[in-house]
C-alpha cells in the first residue's frame, strides 16, 4: 500500500542526482585540467525504469542506470595568453554549455516538484482512509 510513497521517493532521488551532476558540470565549465590532464568532460545521467522484486511490473519507480561522460569533443578557443594554450594559441575548453545545463536544471527541478506533489497526494489519501473508522 505504501508503494506509491516509495515510487515517488525514487523519482525525487533520481532528479536530485541529476541536479548534483548539473551542478558539477556548471562548476567545471572552464576546467582545462581534469582528472587525467585533459579538459573536463561533461557528465550525463542515464535514467531507467526500476523493476521491483516481486511486485507488479511497471510499478518500480525510476533508478539511475549510469553517469556517463558526454563523448562530444571539447571546444577549441583562440586564447594565446592562457597557460594551457598550445603552440598555435588554441585552448581546449570543456564541452559544457551553460544554456543546456540551465534547461536541464529547470527540467529536473520541475520533475522533482511533480514527484513531491504526487507523494503528498498519496499521503493525503492514506490519511483520509483512516477516517473511515473515525
Amino acid at each position, binding site marked *: 500500500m505504501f508503494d506509491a510513497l516509495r515510487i515517488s521517493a*525514487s*523519482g525525487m532521488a533520481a532528479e536530485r542526482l541529476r541536479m548534483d551532476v548539473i551542478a558539477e558540470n556548471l562548476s567545471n565549465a572552464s576546467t582545462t585540467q581534469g582528472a587525467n590532464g585533459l579538459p573536463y568532460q561533461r557528465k550525463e545521467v542515464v535514467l531507467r525504469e526500476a523493476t521491483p522484486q516481486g511486485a507488479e511490473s511497471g510499478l*518500480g*519507480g525510476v533508478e539511475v542506470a549510469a553517469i556517463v561522460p558526454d563523448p562530444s569533443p571539447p571546444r577549441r578557443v583562440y586564447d594565446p595568453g592562457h597557460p594551457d594554450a598550445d603552440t598555435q594559441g588554441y585552448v581546449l575548453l570543456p564541452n559544457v554549455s551553460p544554456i543546456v545545463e540551465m534547461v536541464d536544471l529547470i527540467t529536473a527541478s520541475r520533475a522533482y516538484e*511533480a514527484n513531491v506533489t*504526487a507523494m503528498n*497526494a498519496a499521503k493525503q489519501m492514506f490519511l483520509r482512509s483512516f477516517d473511515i*473508522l473515525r
Partner: protein
Amino acid sequence: MELFDLTQTALERALEGAALRQRILSSNIANANTPGFRRLDVDFHGALASALERDSSPSELRELTFSAEPDASGPTRADGSNVDIEREMAALAENSLEYQGIISVMRARLRMLEAAITGRA
C-alpha cells in the same frame, strides 16, 4: 441495507482500483524523464461499470482483477517517452478526489448502520 452487500463490495473494489491507479500515476511521474518509457494506466471504472451492468454478485465483484495497461495514446517525445506531466498531474488530482469521495460515502453508510444498531442518530 446489508452489512456486506453489493454496494459495499463495489465501494471496496473502487477504493482498491483508485489506490492502484495512484501507484501507477506515481510511477509515471517518477519516470517522466526516463527515455523510452511508456505510460501506464488502469481503467477500473470501466471494469466495475461492466461488472455491475452484468448484474454480478458480490463474490464475482471480489474476483475482478484490475491490471495496469500501457497507454499508447498521446504524442511521443524525441527521447521515446510519452509521459505528459500535465496529464499525469491532472489525473493525480482527479484520482485523489475520487478516493476521498469513496471514503466519504463509506463513512456515510457506516453512520447509517450505526444509527440503526444503536437507535441513536
